[in-house]
């Protein structure tokens, strides 16, 4: 539970709202207003079009602004409301295709760890035992993209651009994005051009570090010798860089095994 006088340690967690109280969350480009009435929850949100992540801060405050002033608003009606609200971060419901600002090449036999960050969703639930899920809201509205060898085969993904930073210190700490370390190993005899990277977000759990930064486990991508297949491995522990982050959420989907073999062009492009 959070006290109004002290700012909570993170934008997610359990919150208690009084009757007829409105609270506003500003997380990156998202503005969210939640209003608690007797027998009703009103939820409104709006994403700014400005895709630049300049709003790296987050803020929670009480507000007089009515939910109706935002673009998307909805009402949820209950017999009675307890004022308990739970907000939890989630990863995307589709894989995320990260396009490096500048494509890079990985020579034969080389390996590298790049850091890509992916935008988050938030899940709103009210009440207790069990909490009732109300809505999933994207903090940043992402563009759709198609990832596959042709327009007939492939899968729908979300598109995002990334710097594919190699140095951990260069990565800005942003509360509304989760960082994924991607270890790429090129075992084939030819140079690997990384123009797009497919991060299987629905298969990844979330970890939160003590500083409030969200992480996903490390992904290992190995381009095999024959060049046709890529091995995709997802660790089942928080990445070493996150310094013992605590597990925050389960993956949306469960993979059959922790090592997946995918067609080469289903991981790299």
């Amino acid at each position: 539970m959070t006290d109004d006088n002290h700012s909570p340690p993170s934008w997610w967690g359990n919150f208690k709202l009084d009757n007829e109280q409105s609270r506003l969350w500003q997380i990156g480009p998202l503005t969210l207003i939640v209003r608690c009435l007797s027998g009703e929850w009103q939820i409104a949100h709006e994403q700014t079009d400005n895709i630049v992540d300049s709003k790296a801060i987050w803020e929670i405050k009480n507000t007089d602004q009515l939910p109706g002033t935002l673009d998307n608003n909805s009402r949820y009606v209950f017999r009675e409301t307890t004022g308990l609200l739970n907000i939890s971060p989630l990863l995307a419901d589709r894989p995320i295709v990260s396009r490096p600002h500048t494509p890079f090449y990985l020579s034969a036999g080389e390996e590298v760890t790049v850091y890509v960050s992916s935008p988050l969703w938030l899940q709103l639930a009210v009440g207790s035992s069990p909490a009732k899920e109300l809505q999933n809201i994207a903090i940043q509205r992402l563009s759709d993209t198609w990832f596959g060898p042709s327009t007939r085969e492939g899968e729908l993904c979300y598109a995002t651009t990334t710097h594919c930073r190699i140095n951990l210190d260069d990565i800005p700490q942003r509360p509304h994005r989760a960082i994924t370390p991607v270890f790429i190993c090129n075992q084939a005899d030819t140079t690997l051009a990384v123009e797009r990277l497919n991060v299987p977000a629905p298969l990844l759990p979330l970890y939160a570090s003590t500083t409030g930064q969200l992480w996903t486990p490390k992904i290992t991508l190995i381009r095999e010798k024959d060049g046709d297949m890529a091995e995709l491995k997802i660790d089942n522990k928080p990445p070493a860089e996150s310094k013992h982050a605590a597990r925050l959420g389960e993956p949306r989907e469960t993979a059959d095994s922790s090592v997946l073999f995918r067609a080469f062009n289903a991981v790299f492009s």
Partner: protein
Amino acid sequence: MHEFWADILSFLSSERMWSVTRAIILVIVGAAIAKLVSSTLTRVAGKKMDRHRTMLLKRGSYYLILALFLISALRELGFSLSVLLGAAGILSVAIGFASQTSASNLISGLFLVAERPFSVGDIIRVGATTGEVLSIDLLSVKLRTFDNLFVRIPNESLIKSEVTTLTRFPIRRLDVKVGVAYKEDLKKVRTVLDEIADRNPLCLEEPKPLYIFQGFGESSLDIQYSVWAKRENFLDLKNSIHQEIKSALDEHGIEIPFPHRTIYTGSATTPFPIQSAENRQAD
């Protein structure tokens, strides 16, 4: 009266009565077995096959088993099978001539099932009709159009004509035709269009939008700008991108021209005399 009852009693106790009873029992038992077998087959195969094939399997198995029992019943009644088949042959020729259209639809229906260009639930376009496929039957395909009308299309015309399945692939391309004035810089127009596609979240990033210069039109430079969208978002993208293109072109001062007519009197003639309307009133 007494004789009538005697006749009935002798018929009831005769061998013929027994064969009629046996025939009736055969038909009833046959119908029950056919029903049981077809529903069991549907349950078993339903998980692996689509709705349409399951329906066909159910009907096929039911009628086949029922036909076998009917033939046995007829034999019980003393009909000779070879005579019956001969009669059926002649009858089928007669019926065939009389119901050419139905037969043709029936055969076309079988081809449609084998070819499977679409299945129940798909959205197809046949000629000027676009709608959701409700059922694929032996004689016709039933559609529900988007203005909620029920359309029956004979299978024969589906086999003969061009059918477009709109829901076969998960993504679709939208071709936007844009005309800009001759004075405009095409490089700038292209940059503006690319920015719009980049900003619209419904527009797929990959496959990349396609820019095609279509030619020098009568009063505009004609451009085709093709963007991709998820099938379900196609209409939303169509609405939003046209609106965005119009406002972005307005914002950048790029003119979307309408047909111009320049009236020229030729070099030999004198120019048109022009008089201002205000001056005329003053006269």
